[in-house]
């Protein structure tokens, strides 16, 4: 009896697969003999007719296998290219062209036309006469009132307490259902310079309203990743009563400048260097990271820092002229998601 082989439609792919697999199996035998020939056979094995594509293989396992092999080959080619380039670079030695600067988001940032030039006179003039000029001319000393939204829960309360230790001359008061608009005139009459309201949602602080008091701007932030003191790893002892220094990093635009000045005005003028404490507001891609450290200079080139104190990140949601008035206030800047979040390289602070 003659058996006629039934032609199967997937014959071609099977054979190709088998070819590849046999190649793979032959490799360990061929390797010790001759490396060059292996590479040639591999490259010969991977030269498929141009109409071939991975997606035509119906069998998932085989398709996956082929895909992995493809990836490996690509990786190998990339590695070879890199090695070649490195060899060339080494061969050239000093004459080699300088390495390319890798692209980062900070490099590729869309240039913001409101970026402040350090020598800009107009900006300097504005800053000399804005709401913070009183502080920066050393006329007033900061006095901060920290409060929460209604009925704060454990974490928020502890967060407020820790904030009060970090910011000198800060007082925590409970809200008890008072309206902010009524609190503000009382604060002004008692010579407070700042009102800080921590908003809470589901027992976790999630928002902050920072209001500079004698009719200063009001900033509304989204607060995230709050770490209380006991959750910090390798933290130091509690902060002392010394006035900390302030570091403000990367506030480059006009908006960033005004926010930076807002943060700076929270702390008293004369930092006690004896205390060796520093509060940092670092802006990166519109996120403001707050950290509180104690530093010690080991020698003139090295400094050790130890984190105390709470840490949190802020994202500016809106900046409003005048004291807190969400309905009728005049907004200087509002974060509009559809307009402002469309580009990944555009930042506003």
């Amino acid at each position, binding site marked *: 009896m003659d058996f006629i082989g039934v032609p199967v439609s997937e014959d071609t792919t099977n054979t190709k697969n088998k070819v590849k697999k046999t190649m793979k199996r032959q490799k360990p035998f061929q390797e010790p003999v001759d490396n060059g020939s292996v590479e040639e056979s591999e490259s010969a094995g991977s030269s498929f007719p141009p109409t071939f594509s991975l997606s035509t293989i119906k069998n998932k396992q085989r398709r996956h296998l082929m895909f992995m092999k493809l990836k490996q080959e690509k990786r190998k080619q990339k590695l070879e290219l890199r090695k070649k380039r490195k060899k060339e670079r080494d061969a050239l030695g000093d004459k080699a062209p300088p390495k390319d600067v890798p692209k*980062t*988001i*900070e490099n590729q940032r869309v240039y913001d036309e409101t970026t402040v030039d350090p020598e800009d006179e107009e900006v300097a003039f504005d800053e000399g006469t804005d709401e913070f000029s009183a502080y920066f001319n050393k006329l007033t000393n900061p006095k901060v009132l920290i409060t929460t939204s*209604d009925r704060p829960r454990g974490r928020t309360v502890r967060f407020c307490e820790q904030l009060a230790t970090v910011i000198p001359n800060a007082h925590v008061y409970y809200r008890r*259902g008072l*309206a*902010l608009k009524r609190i503000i005139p009382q604060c002004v009459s008692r010579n407070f310079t700042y009102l800080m309201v921590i908003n809470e949602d589901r027992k976790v602080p999630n928002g902050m309203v920072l209001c500079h008091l004698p009719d200063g701007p009001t900033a509304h932030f989204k607060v*995230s*990743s709050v770490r209380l003191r006991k959750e910090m790893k390798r933290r130091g002892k509690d902060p002392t009563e010394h006035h900390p*220094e302030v*570091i403000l*990093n990367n506030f480059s635009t006009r908006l960033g400048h005004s926010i930076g000045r807002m943060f700076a005005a929270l702390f008293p003028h004369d930092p006690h*260097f*004896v205390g060796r404490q*520093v509060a*940092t507001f*670092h802006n*990166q*891609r*519109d*996120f403001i*990271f707050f*950290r509180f*450290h104690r*530093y010690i*200079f080991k*020698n*003139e*080139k090295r*400094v050790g*820092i130890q984190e105390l104190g709470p840490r949190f*990140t802020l*994202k500016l949601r809106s900046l409003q002229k005048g004291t807190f008035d969400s309905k009728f206030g005049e907004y200087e800047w509002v974060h509009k*998601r559809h307009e402002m979040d469309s580009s990944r390289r555009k930042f506003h602070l």
Partner: protein
Amino acid sequence: MQHDDVIWDLIGSKQFCSYKVKTKTKNFCRNEYNTTGLCNRQSCPLANSQYATVREEKGRCYLYMKVIERAAFPARMWEKVKLSECYERALQEIDENLIYWPRYYRHKCKQRFTKITQYLIRIRKLTLKRQRKLVPLSRKVERREKRREEKALIAAQLDNAIEKELLERLKQGTYGDIYNFPIHAFDKALEKQDEESESEAEEEDDEEGEDEDKGRREFVADDEIEESDLSDFEDMNNLKVSDEEEGDSSEEEEETEEEMEGSPGAKSKGKTPLKGPVRKKRPYVEIEYEQETEPAPKSKAS
């Protein structure tokens, strides 16, 4: 003829009433004209041809009355009377309108009216207070923000940035004299001083050369301690130590003098820096002396 009993018989328990809400313990009536809200024989507006309720519309209360005479005209069945804003006067109005009605309806209407006014007052009070605005979170946006924050944190390299800033401040001298290692200024001053001293040394060498040619004597201190054959080692040690101390102190004095000369700007308080100036080894010659001392004559006690 209005057949209330038949209606109640049917919808009360036997058959279906679409306004009835059954719960484990009680039956409620969802009919908007119901005064009490319960499903009772007396409270059912369908099973009573004479009925009265109080309802509020946009903050104003109205008394609704249904009488058997208008049972045939459903469009005109309910008579609507606006009640006054004043609480007591409205109660009087209810009394006047339901003057010959059974006590039950008067009582229930007044009760309902009281409840309505109470909740209207509460609404007005609450609208004056701050109201919590619930803002919906978009999950996609929140996730995106969280991821961006993580990436930004990694890109920020906070510790490095802070350390760099602090070192910058130290270099610029914002900390003043608190820290003992103003070594940058020190090193610069040292370099200057070295340059000066080199130039001076050249001049001095020339001068010295000239002096030596003239035949001057120079007295050079010897660093090494002379070894002698004294038997008293303690004294020797004392001598040694004292010599060493003297030698060292003299060296130190000279060096500190040099330092003071070299850094008029930098104030050195307390300890000298670790990287001190390199001590120049002066040329020295080792000389050994041998001394023969006769033992002291022993005096015998006689």
